[in-house]
């Protein structure tokens, strides 16, 4: 059984993506974003990002400030953080951040946050009921 992601992974991901921890945990249930990112992008880079996140939060930064710190010019983990954001949004990742992007599983594609950000769903994968297209989608806040 894979190791459950630490809470800090969801906290950092929430700060980077703007989505709630609960939404990210639901996505993680169906597609292993944590394990796939660590194994495909690289454990060294990922652990460095988590370590930097721990240092920043120890200084008292939270939310948007934290995200800015991680992504700031000169940050050694900015590239990894951006790759993690892309992975959460699109379900795509490149090994070591280089080469062709890949989608680990169909579930990573379907759980990508981009669909929720545009208040929609992946092609063919909708949990909405018949006729939903005749009504406006719920407000964006509900998708976060």
């Amino acid at each position, binding site marked *: *059984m*894979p190791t*459950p992601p630490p809470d800090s992974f969801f906290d950092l991901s929430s700060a980077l993506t703007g989505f709630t921890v*609960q939404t990210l945990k*639901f996505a*993680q*249930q*169906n*597609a*292993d974003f944590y394990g796939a990112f660590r194994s495909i992008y690289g454990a060294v880079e990922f652990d460095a990002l988590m370590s930097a996140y721990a240092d920043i939060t120890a200084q008292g930064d939270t939310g948007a400030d934290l995200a800015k710190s991680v992504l700031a010019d000169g940050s050694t983990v900015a590239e990894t953080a951006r790759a993690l954001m892309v992975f959460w949004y699109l379900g795509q990742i490149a090994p070591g951040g280089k080469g062709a992007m890949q989608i680990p*599983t*169909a*579930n990573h594609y*379907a759980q990508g946050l981009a669909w*929720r950000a545009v208040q929609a769903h992946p092609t*063919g*994968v*909708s*949990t*909405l*009921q*018949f*006729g939903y297209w005749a009504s406006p*989608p*719920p407000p964006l806040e*509900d*998708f976060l």
Partner: protein
Amino acid sequence: MVVALAVGWFAARDVPPPQPISDVVYDLPADVDPVAGAPDLADYDTFSWLSFLALNAPADQTKFSDAPDSEPTWAGWMEDFQILVQDGQVPPPWGSARNIPPLCRAIATEANITRVLTHASKTAGVVNLFEQAQSGPLIDQNGAYVRYEILVNQPMYDYIVDNQLYNLVGLDAFGPIDFPSGNPRSGEIGAIMVKAAWKVMGLGDDPSRFHVTEAYVVDAQAQSCAIERLGLVGFHISTKTVSAPHWIWSTFEHVDNVPDRGTLTPRAHYNFFDPFCEVKRPGQCVENAMPALPWAPSNPDQVPSQVVRTTPIGPVTAVLNTKFQELLREANPLSVWANYMLVGTQFPQRPGDPTDPTGRAFPQSLANTTLETFMQGDTPPVSSSCVGCHNRATTTASAKPSDFTYILSRVTAKY
């Protein structure tokens, strides 16, 4: 793998020990009863087992300890075909016996046989004569088709009949369909559907390990009917409750059905897997492959399905299975009901989520190897998800959501 991870989170607290069942009253639970806080997987799995015990408790008010097997309570419920009447007809009163089809009347000399099985699948459209939901038939190791039946409890039946939802005029005139929900405060039981999968007891089968029944088995293609002795191999329970307006989806199987993929357990006989298949039928042993066309129970030389479970039962569920099976054996060492296991429970984690009418169901996918044999897996949207599929059910008239039942999708009576 991902499901197992999520289950790991749910395993954070101990599974509550089930109550002794040798002398309790077998009441249906109205809703999930969380030990603390929001209900979790263990709470829902416990709900599933308590529902299984209540529904399979002897219909004659005896106890599990009194006999290894007996007619269960749900056997007296009404079948979907009794709801799906012809133009101008009204469904029979609750408790009415099932009509013996004309095909079977010539052999209808067995006064005690009331069960009639015509489904060799889960649908016409979604439950028809020879195929499971959106796929094909399941053929056992003796070449016999698995048969299915779908029944509803009285609150669901009354709702359909009282609101005239058995014909197109009634469906069109009625507003949003909202079956009654089980309410833990009042104890009121809500709508419940069950689906049962049966195999013909044949060579290599030990009937003492199954809940068995005798039934008229209709082959509509061959226009024939036969009296068969059948064993229960799969059992769905769908329950609507206050906490789960998206229903709670519980599914059970006989323990002898199939091995987990890649983990063959030495066993003399599986119901739907042959360890020596490749020796006996070279090239015909593709796992979980649908049978070749044409599909007809009367075809000679049917090739048995070679079925494996692709998603192992999770650890929380497995612990509960052991506990409830032990309790059943304590009640009666020969109890056939101890040979059934909960495969899983699909439940809403966030009821009322406006972005997801399935309530963020967990697990995402759930399959019974006798009812969704060919749709196992975790690939959206093709893999089996109870609530994911039933969420798409609409009425024949107006195409409005039918509150998670496909029975109202099969209504054809115009008035």
